[in-house]
């Protein structure tokens, strides 16, 4: 696009590559801050959405890739790259003031690659223990258990509150630490084992009576090192991992990874597989939203609603069980298509499910949406403006409830989405109630999508033939899909081997926890739990 080309001409030091709508811009590390702020703060194409930050170990240098997009032109993606030859104490400028989501992503890069960001307000490790030795995603990492033995003690909370900061003034490096909480603050731990954290999330919350003053989320309690595992797995083996990240919308994650690999192989996937995958994805989305609906109700104390959600979700699980073999972990998409053809009952059961679910949706609205206590609780709490949602990278239903049109199914239609007619659900108020009701609306829209596809599944193969050993050609592959919680992205860097060189998954839930931190301050304890439910994050997706 001409506007982007013009913009990039401002940076004479940058190397620009373009492939369709993908721009790749490499800049020296001294210019990264200047380039990024010019990209972020310009009037023609403001790159206001930081999709993800990918840390890289290129062998001799360490690098960072900022994947940017603009809310005005969401189909264009710009990869801003920089690298540093220093491996002992690599330092880069922090961009946390340009995008609200950058702070968390930079901590992740620091945790895995040891790159420290200058002026970043919080340079703790994100997932691993603060006393962990080495940086696991570096290629020269030593995984010897003698270096990092299995710890026998809990991590000291005091260590977790010491925040290191690095500042550089006139070429002089200053390092100092400060405490997160004052000595007399009333700090309550919500989690890691707590009924309302939707997994093992640990929130350190500073309270003044019932009012929340500060929130510090601590991740990593279910960190499995999926990205590191991927580097030692062959491509078909890797497929089992994304199901286990966001386990509630597992089929969509796996679909995303398959699409990324298929893009690399330039594999022609049969139409039948596309249709089946789309139906399974939408069923998965309904199941996930039903759980999300039940959870927000339960977080407000209405346990019955949760049981109703689970009851309806069970029907989808039964359909999955018949066709995919798995219930929660469907394990259905494979490279080139799907694992097996649909079960003879599949179409009949799905067609029975659609009217049933429509009836139940009415009941859910009647029982809970119209409930005066529920409305009172949700109205006027947890406002998230559109600008803030974009800056925080709060994709998915959360962003759409604030009026940010970010549905990847519309922006970059994949699988069978180009063939169906559906609306992107948008609301404008950005309140808790909008985030609640948009999930029920999306269930109705998903039913509409399935209805169009279920009778028109084309005949033919359900999977394309692939080679026994899959080698991805050298290059970078990036695939965006719309998960039930937001944008789930797969970044694969291949060097032509049968194992990927680097894999990065964008977790929509991670930015949602960051959003919770932003909107829950000054609300009450009861609201914190409800807001967490309304954002509907899944913690294993954050920890990966």
């Amino acid at each position: 696009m001409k506007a982007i080309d013009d913009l990039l001409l401002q940076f004479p030091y940058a190397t620009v590559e373009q492939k369709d709508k993908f721009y790749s811009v490499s800049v020296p590390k001294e210019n990264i801050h200047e380039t990024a702020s010019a990209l972020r703060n310009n009037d023609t194409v403001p790159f206001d959405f930081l999709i993800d930050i990918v840390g890289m170990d290129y062998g001799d240098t360490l690098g960072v890739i900022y994947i940017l997009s603009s809310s005005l032109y969401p189909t264009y993606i710009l990869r801003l790259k920089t690298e540093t030859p220093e491996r002992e104490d690599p330092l880069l400028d922090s961009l946390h003031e340009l995008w609200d989501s950058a702070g968390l992503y930079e901590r992740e890069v620091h945790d895995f690659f040891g790159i420290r960001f200058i002026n970043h307000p919080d340079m703790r490790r994100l997932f691993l223990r603060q006393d962990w030795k080495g940086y696991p995603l570096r290629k020269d990492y030593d995984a010897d258990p003698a270096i990092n033995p299995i710890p026998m003690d809990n991590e000291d909370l005091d260590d977790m509150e010491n925040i290191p900061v690095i500042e550089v003034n006139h070429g002089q490096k200053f390092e100092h630490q400060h405490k997160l909480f004052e000595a007399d603050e009333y700090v309550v731990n919500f989690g890691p084992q707590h009924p309302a954290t939707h997994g093992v999330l640990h929130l350190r919350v500073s309270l003044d009576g019932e009012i929340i003053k500060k929130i510090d989320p601590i991740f990593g309690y279910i960190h499995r090192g999926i990205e590191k595992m991927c580097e030692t797995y062959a491509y078909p083996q890797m497929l089992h991992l994304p199901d286990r990240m966001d386990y509630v919308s597992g089929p969509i994650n796996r679909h995303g990874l398959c699409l990324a690999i298929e893009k690399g192989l330039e594999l022609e996937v049969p139409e039948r597989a596309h249709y089946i995958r789309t139906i399974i994805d939408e069923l998965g989305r309904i199941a996930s939203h039903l759980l999300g609906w039940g959870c927000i109700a339960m977080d407000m104390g209405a346990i019955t609603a949760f049981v109703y959600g689970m009851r309806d979700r069970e029907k989808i699980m039964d359909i999955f069980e018949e066709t995919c073999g798995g219930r929660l972990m469907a394990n259905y998409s494979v490279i080139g298509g799907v694992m097996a053809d649909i079960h003879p009952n599949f179409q009949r059961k799905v067609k029975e499910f659609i009217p049933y679910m429509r009836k139940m949706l009415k009941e859910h609205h009647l029982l809970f949406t119209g409930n005066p206590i529920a409305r009172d609780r949700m109205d006027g709490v947890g406002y998230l403006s559109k600008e803030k949602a974009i800056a925080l990278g709060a994709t998915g239903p959360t962003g759409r409830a604030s009026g940010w049109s970010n549905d990847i199914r519309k922006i970059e239609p994949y699988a069978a989405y180009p063939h169906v007619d559906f609306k992107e659900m948008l609301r404008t108020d950005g309140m808790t109630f909008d985030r609640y009701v948009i999930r029920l609306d999306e269930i109705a829209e998903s039913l509409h999508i399935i209805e169009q596809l279920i009778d028109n599944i084309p005949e033919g193969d359900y999977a394309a033939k692939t080679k026994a050993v899959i080698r991805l050609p050298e290059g970078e592959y990036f695939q965006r899909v719309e998960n039930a919680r937001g944008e789930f992205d797969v970044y694969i860097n291949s060097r032509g081997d049968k194992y990927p060189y680097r894999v990065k998954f964008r977790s929509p839930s991670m930015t949602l926890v960051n959003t919770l931190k932003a909107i829950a301050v000054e609300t009450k304890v009861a609201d914190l739990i409800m807001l967490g439910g309304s954002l509907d994050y899944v913690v294993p997706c954050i920890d990966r």
Partner: protein
Amino acid sequence: MFHFEVVTNWIDALLREHLSEGWTLLIEFILIGVVILTVYSVLALILIYLERKVCAFFQCRIGPNRVGPFGVLQSVADMVKILLKEIIKINKVDPFLFRLACYLVIIASICTFGAIPFDKGLQAVDFNIGVFYLLAVSSIGVVGILIAGWSSNNKYTLIGAMRSGAQLISYELSCGLSLLAIVVLSGTMQLSQIVEQQADAWFIFKGHIPALIAFIIYLIAGHAETNRGPFDLPEAESELTAGYHTEYSGIQFGFFYLAEYLNMFIIAAIAATVFLGGWMPLHIPGWESFNGIMDYIPPVLWFLGKTFFCIFLALWVRWSFPRLRIDQLLSLEWKILMPISLINILLMTLLVL
């Protein structure tokens, strides 16, 4: 109409015939204590079973169905389990207050329980200030909850206890004021008298609209007094894990649990006694044969029927509504229920005059 009065009077006469005054009283005290404790725990078992079945019904489930026919022995098994459970010693608690708290809660509950008239003469405590006694004794429970939250040395329990303090003290006002409306109507505070006065018609019919308003306010405020959803903020399991009794285990937790269920029963029983005529059968003035048929149903059944009806209402609400937030809870009481109750007393006074 057969009244339990006959049985109790016979026991009393029998004892007095053979023993001196002091021994009679001692034996009667012991008998009453044993009976009350037994009924208390048996009722708790029934209520727990009932709650689980009703909850299952609302949630499209089956509920307990493995232990005994229809799972009726489930709560007995649970009771045995809780009796055998280890009481875990928590570091850094205040040991004296920590142990005291659960007894305070259950003593308050049992004392209130003793004042409930199950039948004519089947009532352990029948003061002439019965209603006043009920309100006073049930308030001791708040102290127990506050002590439990404070002595546990846990931040969740402290938040839970503070919420519970604010909530119980506020709602006690509406509770008391709505009962006061009926006291104005009946002119007595003695529970047995209040029941006797409803022989021609229950107070909810006799008192016209003010009595109905008082009944509804009493149900809401009383429900809040029992700390059950949508007013279960002190224990709010999705926020504070278990609120004020987070650190309790074994039978100490069992005491809180028992008291919670029995408080639900007590609130329902008082509602039944004061508004729905207690053990008094349904009498309609003028319909003599109808009244005669109604009298054939034993009064204890009348009483339990009305009480369980009120309990069912409480369970229905408990399993349907989401929880209120603390500021909404307090504004409901201070801005809505209390002014209405005050005006209601005024109305009732005008009606009586």
